[in-house]
Each structure stands twice: as C-alpha cells, then as structure tokens.
C-alpha cells in the first residue's frame, strides 16, 4: 500500500510543556483517518509540524516516499487548519487565484471547486463579507484546488451552526467517496465515527491507539433486550457463560458479551427456554464509548 505520510518519533516541546511525545504513525492511501483527542492533546501541533509551520523538537516525518521537500509535497496536499485564513480585502475567487499561483494550478479549477462547496454565486464578494460557514467552505474549496492526494481537516465544523456542520459533513463524505485520502482531526467523536475507517487516538501528546476504528477495543458488543418475563430473562443471562456485565435500566436490559454470539442463535436459545422478547438489538460500542474507555484506562 502506498504511504502518504510517515511520522517517526516526533516530539515537540513548548518550553516545559511537551505537546507531542514520541509520536509515530503512518497514513496510507485511500483510507479516511481520524485524529482523535481531547482539547490540548497535541492534534493541531502534530498537523502544524507536518504542514511546515511548526518546528519539531526531535524526530522526523516525510511525505510520500520522502524524495521531495516538504513544501513541494504540500503542493499535493490540501489542508485547513483551525479557522479559515484568507485576505479579507480580496474576493473569494481572488483568494483562490492566489492559492492557484502558489500551488501552480490553472485558474479554471476555481469555478469547479466553488461549485462543489456551493459558493459560485458569491465568488466576487469580498472575503470579509462571508459568514463563518461560507469562510469554512471557501477554505475547503481552496484545499481541493489541486485535487490533493490527501485532504487534512483540523476541526472543520468548529463554531458552525447545525446547518453549516451538516453541509461540511456532506462535502467531506462526498470527497471521501471519490477515493481521496482524508485526515480529520477532531474532538467530536460522532463526526469521526460517521466518516473514518481508521483512527489515531492522542492524549496529552501520547499515542494511545492507532488502527481500524472497529478494532479499537477488544469487545464483542452487547445486546439491548426487553421482555415481559424480565426476571426469567435476567436469571438466564446470569447463568450464561457468554455474558459478562448486565445492566438494567427501567425495562431495558443491557447485556455485554464475553465471546462472539449471533443474535439469531441467542434468540433461538431464549425461545427454547421459553423466554419471549419484545425488543432485541445487537450493538457495538459507539466510538465515544470506546474512546472514553480507552482514555480512562490509561
């Protein structure tokens, strides 16, 4: 698999504070990565280093196969950091022209990308007249100008209203569907869960996990059950080796699995034991639950 970004033992210290500590991971082509962590966990610093705006204290990184300089590699990358930074006195399309000149991209891409983010009608308005949502969408258009090999997004929905968040998410999904590699840094887990296949989890600058989303914690998921014969159901679950923790909330029984068990097999077992269910759902922990488990454990 082609690697796009390789980070080795990266460390960044701001005075006495260590923002990133001995971080290593690799980003491969075609996947959608989430960079997760609470505020101040070193996500933006890590992105700053690979994007040539923050100097690392030690360690190294290289883009693609490492044969080109960082600033040349960045011409093949699209990135948005924290908040959109453009020249307020220029119009949207003039700002994009400037980016075209830096990246060496023809101007005819501008209208095409403005179309994607739905800003074509406002392209001649000055940037300072844009709303925050429009600024963020212009930033995405700018990042897409060079048809990047990888799109890096740092908190792209920060400060937006629900509609704005929805629009940005739709755009990201569309881009991901086209096969573009994406690295999405966020502390909003449902955001990452909706689009990412892989995650890197950071806390206080230390990597806790990197790999596939569904392999983040060794868990077989859980069943949510309801039955009119609740006591009989509970005693059955307690005597069954396959189940660990059992929680009861009002009429809803949540039973965590110790080993894999298919819902159809489980349902048959219950029926054979004379227990009729009114509600049966098999679920895996959400990313948020997994993330909290992971960060609490360490």
């Amino acid at each position: 698999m082609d690697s796009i970004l390789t980070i080795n033992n990266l460390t960044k210290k701001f005075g006495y504070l260590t923002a990133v500590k001995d971080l290593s991971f690799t980003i491969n082509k075609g996947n959608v990565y989430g960079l997760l962590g609470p505020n101040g966990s070193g996500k933006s610093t890590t992105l700053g280093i690979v994007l040539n705006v923050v100097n690392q204290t030690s360690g190294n990184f290289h883009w693609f196969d490492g044969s080109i300089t960082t600033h040349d590699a960045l011409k093949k990358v699209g990135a948005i950091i924290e908040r959109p930074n453009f020249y307020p006195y220029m119009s949207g399309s003039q700002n994009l022209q400037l980016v075209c000149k830096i990246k060496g991209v023809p101007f005819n891409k501008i209208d095409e990308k403005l179309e994607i983010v739905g800003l074509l009608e406002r392209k001649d308005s000055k940037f300072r007249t844009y709303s925050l949502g429009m600024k963020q969408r212009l930033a995405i258009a700018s990042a897409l100008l060079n048809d990047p090999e990888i799109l890096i997004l740092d908190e792209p929905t920060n400060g937006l209203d629900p509609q704005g968040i929805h629009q940005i998410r739709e755009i990201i999904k569309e881009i991901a569907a086209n096969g573009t590699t994406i690295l999405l840094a966020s502390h909003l887990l449902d955001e990452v869960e909706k689009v990412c296949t892989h995650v890197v989890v950071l806390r206080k600058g230390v990597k806790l996990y990197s790999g596939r989303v569904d392999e983040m914690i060794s868990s077989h998921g859980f069943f949510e059950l309801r039955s009119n014969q609740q006591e009989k159901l509970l005693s059955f679950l307690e005597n069954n080796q396959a189940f660990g923790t059992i929680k009861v909330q009002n009429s809803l029984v949540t039973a965590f699995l110790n080993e894999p068990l298919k819902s159809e097999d489980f349902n048959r077992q219950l029926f054979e034991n004379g227990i009729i269910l009114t509600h049966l759902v098999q679920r895996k922990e959400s990313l948020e639950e997994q993330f909290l488990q992971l960060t609490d454990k360490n």
Partner: protein
Amino acid sequence: MFRLLNLELQKLLLNRTSTILIFISFILPFFVILLSSLKINVFGFFTLELGELGIFNFPIIWHLTTFFASQFKFFFAIVVVSMIGNEYSNKTIKQNLIDGLSKKEFILSKFYTIVFFSLISTLLIGLISLCIGWYYSSYNELGIIIQDTQFLLGYLIKLIGFFSLCLFFGMLVKRSAFALAFLFILFILEWIIFGIISWKVNTDIAEKIQNYFPLKSMYKLIDQPFQRIAMTKFPDKTNLGYDYAVHWYEIGIVLGWTALFIFLSYRLLKKRDL
C-alpha cells in the same frame, strides 16, 4: 522569481490602502519635481521659476532629485511593514506555507517586491530628471549629463537597504505600528550612541563610527545637496566644501546591511512556530 513577484503584487495591488501609499511614495515625488520645474506665477506679483536658479543643471540635478525623492520613501516603508503585519494578523502567512510556499520563497517574494518598486522608482526619477535637465540645463554635452548618474545607483541601493530594514522589523515584531516605532527608536539610538562616543572620545571618530550604522549609512549615500548648490553660487567660499560623492564603500556598507536584514528575516521565520 516572477511567480513570487506576481504573488506579492496581487496581495499589494488589490489592497486599497497599499495602492494609495505606493502611489504617494513613487508617483507623488515625480509630480512634485515636475511641478516645481514649471513657471509658477504667484498671484501675478512675480514669477517663480526654480529653473532659473540653476538647480536643474546637469549634473547637479541628479543629486537634487534623488535626495528630494528619497524623502518620500517613508510612505512605502509603511507598505513594507504592513505587508508583513497583515500576513501575521490575517494568519495568511500560515496558510501560504501550508499551501506549499517555502519559508525562503516567502521572504524572497517580499524582497523581490522591494527591489521591483525601488527599480521602478529609480527609473521614474531618472527619466524625469533627464527630461527636466534637458529642458533647463545650460550644459548639454553627454559627458556632463552622465556625470554624477551614480546618484541614481545610490538612490536605488538606499531604497532597497531601507526597505529591507523595514522588512526585518516587520518580521521581528509582527505588528506594523510597532515596527515603525522600532524604526524611530533605531534612529534615536544611533544619535544617542553618536552623542556618547563624541562625548567620551571626539566628534570625528564618532562620525566615522556612525557612518557604519544602518540608518546613517543609508542617509550618507546621498548627502544633502543644499551646500553644494550654495557652492555653485559662491565658488570662492571654500569653507563650504564637503564630500558629497557616492562612494563605493558607502554602497558596500548598505549592501552589507541589506544582506544581513534579509538573512535575519529568513532565520527568524525559520525558527518561529506559527
């Protein structure tokens, strides 16, 4: 190189304030010199014609116009300082680097712009001086016309050096207003050091040392022309004599400062986390 210049020109020329300031600093002296060369009738009482005074004669006109025009450099200094200050306050410097501009290219694009505008200014001043001189001068021999054209070179070097200093201060403090304040502080500081040395040692040595300071060395490239004009009027007063020429070592000192300021700006940007 043209790509970098093109980038910076777009940033400057689409900004109304910079455009006005660029106009003031380069076009205004052009017009002022042009107007002053015309006959001015003061309310019908008498006619004022500066050309009659002989100040537009070759070769002295080169000295006069370059000295006069260089006083307008402060307006472009504001542009230089604000083109750095704006990049920081809009955080566009960060975005430029993320988009794939290298830190070296960023500094170079600013430097090329400085050189570009200094060249344009020098050409304009050269052209207007030539025209006015041609019209007024009593001497029209080629030898006399091209005599003292080194003032044009001095003017160019002076502008580039001064704007590089502004660029460095802009990079150092990131805020336009503070950078201009620093410029003023440096000016005062140079005179304080001059004062201390002349008090402790003597004025001659102090002046020699001061000629190496950034602002003073730039000023020294083109000395004030008034004494020289007086000399042409009263040739017998030998005590007016002074060394007004543009010397190669004066150019050397300013070029040295220019190189240092550009290098320091680059170092500063390279070391800094944005």
